């Protein structure tokens, strides 16, 4: 009180909040780092004691175990086996997401229905499915297939001979498969999509100018179908694209390694610079740049460091750039092989009916039609039914969350029930539904990992076989985690992208 402090603006370090904060953080970080270091060094010595290490070179080693289904049944290396597992996992994920969305939306609408019995059936479905662990359900479907479904017999196979077979060996049904002209037709479809979009926008603009109905949607859909139908017949014309793909592949082939490295490093630094610029812009006020806190400075510094780190890594690890060049070359080569001037013979799609054959002692499904094996059936049914129950609740919640005043206002304006749904409720509900829907897709992708319980060879099941044979459990678990993180981040990136486009612009 009586003595004035000599240096008023100098705070001693033990009273300086910024200093205290950072010393605490650094202390904790070094604590965590220390524990991690101790654990990793312990793991290293434990691994050395049993003659293993952290390296990943076992991926190229040959393996001798069969895989029950997938792009190959006799993989020639660990990497090849894991790749088969990954594709098997993606098969279930993609088809499961499609089916679960359709079923989930139907059940969700049923849950909103005024019809008592439909409502109760939907409620019963949801309450049954979501309260039983998914693993129990998957194992149940597997046991159900094995114990209840009929054996496959060449005479009595059914229920609809030639179209749909259901038996202990799985489900086989008629299907359309891509044929020789498929890729060229796909090019037409893509073109059609662009044209449809342009047509839709033009008609919409015309509608806004004139105020009269311009049938924008019909125009868009019509344009797309025109391209699809015409493309079906003249798809060989698109064969000229093959030359383009070949040219791109050739460019990849002659690209020097350093070129790719410089490009990737530049990309990383540009991304970091873009982030920093955007961040600084967000801190800019009409009165100029706001004072940056230590947190802000850290963010900027961290972004810069990460950008630089990735750029450096591109030069330290030339394998990444090399792999990217190889991959690009092969990717476009593959494309080029699918296109040929004036076609490779045959239509875009081929229809195929399933058949039962008897090569040995037991009858089997032939290699026509689309066949779900029993493990695939168990996992797919399990994740689809389970996710659909959650999606139904998401849909119902989204629709009910649209304020009542909105539909009242719509009705007061004289909209029909369909118009009300189409223009007032669904657009608003979709905005609410999208983020939790994306979450459900993520859950579905992760839940496919339970396939290991019914011996469906997804990446987890193949991985367990690999580490049982090679002992490289550490590496396999890291590969799993890396793969699932990639899938999760990809799905959430898609959802975030659409979500940002749909968000209300708040003023």
């Amino acid at each position, binding site marked *: 009180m009586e003595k004035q402090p000599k240096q008023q603006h100098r705070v001693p370090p033990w009273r300086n909040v910024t200093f205290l904060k950072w010393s605490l953080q650094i202390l904790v970080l070094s604590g965590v780092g220390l524990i991690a270091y101790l654990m990793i060094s312990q793991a290293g010595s434990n691994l050395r004691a049993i003659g293993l290490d952290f390296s990943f070179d076992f991926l190229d080693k040959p393996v001798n175990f069969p895989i029950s289904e997938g792009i190959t049944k006799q993989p020639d290396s660990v990497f090849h086996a894991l790749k088969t597992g990954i594709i098997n996992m993606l098969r279930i994920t993609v088809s499961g997401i499609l089916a679960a969305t359709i079923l989930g939306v139907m059940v969700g609408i049923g849950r909103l229905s*005024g019809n008592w*019995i*439909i409502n109760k059936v939907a409620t019963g479905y949801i309450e049954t499915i979501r309260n039983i662990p998914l693993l129990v359900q998957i194992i*149940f479907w597997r046991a*159900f297939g094995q114990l209840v479904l009929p054996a496959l017999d060449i005479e009595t196979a059914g229920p609809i001979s030639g179209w749909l077979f259901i038996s202990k060996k799985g489900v086989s049904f008629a299907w359309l498969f891509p044929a020789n002209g498929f890729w060229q037709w796909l090019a037409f479809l893509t073109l059609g999509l662009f044209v449809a979009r342009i047509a839709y926008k033009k008609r919409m603009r015309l509608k806004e100018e004139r105020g009269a109905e311009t049938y924008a949607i019909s125009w868009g859909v019509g344009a797309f179908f025109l391209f699809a139908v015409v493309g079906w017949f003249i798809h060989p014309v698109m064969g000229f694209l093959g030359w383009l793909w070949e040219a791109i592949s050739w460019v990849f082939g002659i690209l020097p390694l350093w070129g790719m490295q410089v490009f990737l490093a530049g990309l990383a630094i540009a991304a970091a610079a873009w982030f920093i610029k955007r961040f600084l812009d967000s801190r800019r006020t009409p009165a100029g740049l706001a004072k940056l806190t230590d947190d802000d400075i850290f963010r900027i510094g961290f972004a810069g460091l990460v950008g630089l780190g990735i750029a450096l890594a591109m030069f330290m690890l030339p394998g990444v750039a090399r792999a990217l060049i190889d991959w690009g070359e092969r990717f476009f080569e593959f494309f080029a092989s699918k296109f040929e001037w004036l076609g490779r013979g045959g239509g875009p799609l081929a229809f195929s009916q399933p058949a039962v054959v008897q090569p040995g002692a037991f009858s089997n499904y032939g290699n026509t039609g689309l066949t779900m094996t029993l493990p695939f059936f168990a996992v797919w049914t399990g994740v689809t039914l389970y996710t659909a129950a959650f999606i139904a609740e998401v849909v119902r919640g989204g629709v009910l969350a649209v304020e009542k005043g909105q539909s009242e206002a719509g009705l007061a304006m004289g909209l029909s029930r369909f118009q009300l749904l189409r223009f007032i409720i669904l657009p608003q509900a979709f905005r609410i539904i999208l983020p939790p829907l994306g979450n459900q897709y993520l859950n579905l992708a992760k839940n496919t990992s339970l396939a290991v319980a019914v011996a469906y060879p997804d990446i987890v099941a193949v991985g367990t076989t690999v580490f049982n044979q090679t002992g490289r459990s550490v590496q396999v678990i890291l590969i799993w985690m890396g793969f*699932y993180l990639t899938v999760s981040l990809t799905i959430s990136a898609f959802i975030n992208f659409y979500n940002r486009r749909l968000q209300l612009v708040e003023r």
Partner: protein
Amino acid sequence: MSDEQTQMDQLLEVEEAPLVAQLHPMRWIRENLFPSVLSGILSVVTMLAIIGFLYGVLSWVFAPQRALVPEDVTTLDAFVTDILVDDLVRTNRVEPDQLLDPGETLRLSTSEIEWEVPADVGSVPEFVAYLLDEPSADEFVTTADDVIRLNGLDPDEELVPGETYRIQGSARQWNSISTNSRNYFTLAYPTEQYIRIWISFGILCALIGLSAVTWSDRPRVSGARIARKMTVFGAVFAGVALLAPWSFKVDSAFIFAGLALSVGGFLTRRRLLRRDGEEKDDLPLFGVVAFVLALIIGTMWLLPMLVDKIVIASTTQVPLTMMALVAVAAFWIGKGLRSGLMSMGALKGILLAFWALSMPVIYMVILRDPAIDLTVQDIAIGVVIGLIGAALVWFMAGPNAGELGKGLAAILVLLALLSWFPPLAGVTWLELIKTKLLLGGLASFAMAAATFGGNQRARASMVGAWLATTALVTWFSIIAEGGTSLNLQSDFLGGMVLTVLLAFGGILLSFPIGVLLALGRTSTMPLFRLMSTAYIETVRGVPLITVLFFGALFLPLFLPSDLRIADALKALIAITGFSGAYLAENVRGGLQSIPKGQYEASQALGMSTVQMTLFITLPQALRAVIPALVGQVIALFKDTSLVAIVGLADLLLVARAIVPGQPAFIGSQLENLVFVALVYWIFTFSFSRASLRIERKLGLGER
């Protein structure tokens, strides 16, 4: 996996049909089933589909046993003998032509009763002849009369070889479940020590009973609502009985009972609604729960007395009755405590401590029965650190500790961290894990002292808490290092007990982790935010099964090679780490929902960041996310089934591998899976209903 489950539930209020319509059945049917032509057609089609589905399920569930007539058999008597010989051979694993010792016991697949082989019986066919005359076996053997009755044959009709005929018994092996009830409950736990299991469950029941007191003053349910449920349940029950392939006598009895329940429910509801004009919450919830418990217990005791066929072992009856009594008694004791001796706050505090302690006590002390190996060193370390710590805490919690106290706290934190450094570990007693734990505890008390200290009372309670912590840490480290006095395998837990302990322990342990991670992620300190975000996003991006494999295969690698931890513990650690990340996101949602004014007001009052978090923002955040937390409990409970994949014998593995692996029950997988699905369903469904109730009570989502 069900983050949204409860949030969605809370958004949606079920719209009740107008009461008038509910009182007049015909009008109700017209309005709700046939509002338009299309809707009516849909109703009829759906109804037919439901009936078809139910019929399929029921005829699977109650499928009668059928037997094939062998080629050389034409008479009924020979057929009956053949069936019984087959059954005895299969169930008792004897050879058909084997000589039986007198005094040996044999059983049939249709019952639990064991029959002794009489002195004059030597072979299996002779034993069959004896069984056919034995009155006590009458219910369980297929006689010639049974075959005639079940297949609608003429008494002198000849059997067709190669055809199948219905015989007594079920084609489904539902008895594999009742026979294995002990395996489902605990698996390998020694039978003579079963009292320990029951004591553990008794503790949980008592805690649940006590906690019910703190739930709310007078939770009530609506009688009219229960009556409506009875109406629907009775009707469904009667429908099921109608579709099930039972005998006419049984069928009609069940249909009558179902219809009586339904009509009774409907009339009660109408009466109540006429009187009150609406659904009124007129019954005390706990009274209803106690009534239902009494009903179940009563049935359990009365049913075996009334129906000869049903046998319930007294080792099931007595403990279950005790459990119910314990829960009810605990509720009344809690009520007495609250009205006389204790404030609600004190009761809640004590309960919280009990819940937190119950898990380690049950696992370490009661189920494992530690062989305690006390050494002087253990006691000395505990006493010395405890007393020095007590003095330090007393000083640091004082109002005048000031900078010196903070400096002291910093030194203690540094000491606690340094004790884990290998180079410092030349001193043997510092190397002990209990010393490190005690120092860590002291450091956290030192950090908390400035926040919780103050007047004499606060100081005294802090010192008390520290001494209790010391005693607990010392005690637990002693029993953790010691062996067990029971004859147990390393993984002595299995079945239901394992499932419950994993779920319960997982949620208890992941709670603090989740809160810390959420605080880290919302913190203004970038390094903490970075670490928390990295952890949360990594864990949320990968499936639980990889985390469980991580626990099973990685954890042993990270630890010194002489330290072995039980498989159940590895799974628990993995589940905790996984669930912590999800909990953190829930808590973060709560933290972000708190208005900015709350932060500003507490800063204006001169609170430190720690005080603001602990006393102002965190309590409000946690209250706001209770429904999400219950959703997390449900998800965690379902997720525990995944430990079956890494080889732990939980409920699912018992149903999937252990029971169908028994020679007597090969091929019973589907029955057992249906059973565990039902068990899981009952648990999760009641959780989610309870969560809805809590939400309504808290008034969340109504603002």
